[in-house]
């Protein structure tokens, strides 16, 4: 039996806003009958303000599909259309105190219905670009289509690669056999055969690292070398990060010192190891960057 949260159970047993909304002016019908979910979302939108005055649903689906639909209607009521469009799958799941990984697609359906209903209200045609495959990694809820597409796009050839790019297989590791099967299939398409033990691609960028996380990581590396520089009477400061180029300024005794190039090389190596990607470190004088952009 699924481990549903109390909130999911409550929304399933006492669904809010179930049934037809007579004066709806935005209707979204989405679903996947093969996987047993279909949803009609009905919105009543105030034309002057774009505010959702009322939302109702009808759902063919399991307990969490019905609960997700109910939650969605509660979440979007009172919001403007633009605000409502910001509701993500994760928001729906969070509202319900979480969904089992196998059931995350129920919240995806809710979000799609919302997009479809808003498109319908605005007189636009909504087309679905979401394809769903069998769930492979239960720890991180990654499905087969996602893994296949990632292997294809990045020419991956090891389970470790797949984990680095999609997170799939990074938890309990029970799905490694399943990932290998997908690798065998997709690699055959490009005329290669899967070999166990192939090392992971070096340039794999850690998955899910946002720009902010990346910059924080760079700062942390610089912080770790700072004591050494200070001992020699110098310092280093991060100025900017532009893609694969990292601009720093060397100050104090380090600036222009003969060892500068060597020191920077060491820092660059350390950064590459930490970020798991190729980067270039460029020494610049503080202020040079902003001046450059002011005087093109």
């Amino acid at each position, binding site marked *: 039996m699924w481990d549903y949260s109390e909130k999911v159970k409550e929304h399933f047993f006492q669904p809010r806003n179930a049934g037809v909304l007579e004066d709806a002016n935005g209707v979204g019908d989405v*679903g*996947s*009958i093969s996987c*047993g979910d279909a949803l009609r979302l009905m919105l009543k939108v105030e034309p002057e303000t774009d505010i959702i005055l009322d939302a109702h649903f009808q759902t063919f*689906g399991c307990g969490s599909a019905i609960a997700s639909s109910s939650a969605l209607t509660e979440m979007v009521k009172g919001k403007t259309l633009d605000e409502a469009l910001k509701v993500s799958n994760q928001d729906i799941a969070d509202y319900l105190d979480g969904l089992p990984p196998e*059931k995350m697609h129920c919240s995806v359906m809710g979000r799609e219905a919302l997009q479809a209903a808003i498109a319908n209200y605005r007189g636009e045609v909504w087309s679905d670009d979401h394809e769903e495959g069998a769930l492979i990694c239960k720890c991180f809820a990654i499905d087969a289509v996602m893994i296949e597409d990632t292997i294809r796009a990045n020419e991956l050839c090891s389970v470790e690669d797949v984990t680095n790019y999609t997170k799939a297989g990074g938890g309990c590791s029970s799905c490694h056999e399943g990932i290998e099967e997908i690798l065998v299939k997709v690699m055959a398409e490009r005329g290669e055969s899967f070999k166990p033990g192939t090392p992971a691609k070096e340039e794999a960028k850690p998955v899910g690292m946002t720009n902010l996380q990346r910059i924080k990581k760079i700062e942390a590396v610089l912080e770790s070398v700072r004591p050494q520089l200070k001992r020699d009477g110098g310092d280093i400061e991060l100025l900017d990060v532009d893609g694969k180029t990292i601009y720093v300024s060397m100050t104090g005794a380090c600036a222009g010192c003969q060892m500068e190039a060597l020191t920077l090389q060491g820092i660059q190596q350390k950064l590459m190891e930490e970020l798991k990607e190729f980067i270039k470190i460029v020494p610049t004088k503080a202020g040079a960057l902003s001046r450059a952009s002011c005087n093109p």
Partner: protein
Amino acid sequence: MEGIYFDNNATTRVDEKVVEAMLPYFTEQFGNPSSMHSFGNKVGLAIKKARMQVQELLGAEHDSEIIFTSCGTESDSTAILSALKAQPERKEIITTTVEHPAVLTLCTWLEKDGYKVHYLPVDEKGRLNLAEYKKLLSDQTAVVSVMWANNETGTFFPVVEMAELANAAGAMFHTDAVQAVGKVPLNLKDTKIDMLSVSGHKLHAPKGIGVLYLKRGVRFRPLLRGGHQERGRRAGTENTTSIVGLGKAAEMAMEAMHHENTEVKRLRDKLETGILAKVPRSFVTGNPDDRLPNTCNIAFEFIEGEAILLLLNKFGIAASSGSACTSGSLEPSHVMRAMGIPYTAAHGTVRFSLSRYSTEAEVDRVIAVVPEIIAQLRKLSPYWEGDGPKEEAFAPTYA
């Protein structure tokens, strides 16, 4: 646990008398039957008795044809892999599209090793076409593995006849009979069935014990090696308590066989007609004329099975469903799809499976509750309006 348990094809309650028979073998009679002292000797005798009790239930000619295993799945794997190992020149397997995953998943895995697997299709009532089966049998067929009764619908396959045809083609015949044993009188000595799988917990014995019936003279290659237990055919210290329990359960199943096929069947029929009479747009799946006496599988159109089960559970009623969501997969039951049941009905199938403990009062209660639940969910369904499906069919953008 209070409640109405109508999910006996999933597992059954261990009978109190079975527990009673088992208990001494945890404490006083804890010996290893292989040991050369009286601690072990008494346990050895208890296993012998259990073996004969199972032999009786299966109608086997010799007690040495009974091999105790850990479960039905182990018996299935042992049988099929043994047949392939024992006849390396034969590279084909014949099975059906509606087998239990214990057989089906093993077969798809064997395909990767170069074996050719033929999956016999079924018709809308879940029946096989024997003419098609005959055409597939050849001197390349290593083993035929066909279930005795389907776990979802209860529908029988003509395994006795199919075994004769396999035998004539020189192929081995295995049947996964975990749902049939204890509910159907068996007389294996008069059949050409070479191997048969039994699962203890389907007939009021504990979980973790199974049997592989292996007809004398059939070539065999063990799955587990490294011990003389079960005459070297299944190494590993015997699960003595559970073997004793299964023996007792087999004896009790023999006694209850008549009750199972009269009283349990009557209750099942009452439940089924009661529900069908009260719920529009519902129908029985499988073959109602030739199936297990305890099983009924009903499709409720335009609603989803997991939602039905959750509501049933709220009323203390346990059943199971072939919907995708109950298994976490994206497809409804392969059995329903193989019979060509449309998606809108396949997701709404519910299996009620009774046992000799089921009562008239329970059946009446379920008949009273089910129509309410179905109506409640249909009110939520975008496919439904008033008393029937929407006139203008609901056609969402499918992912």
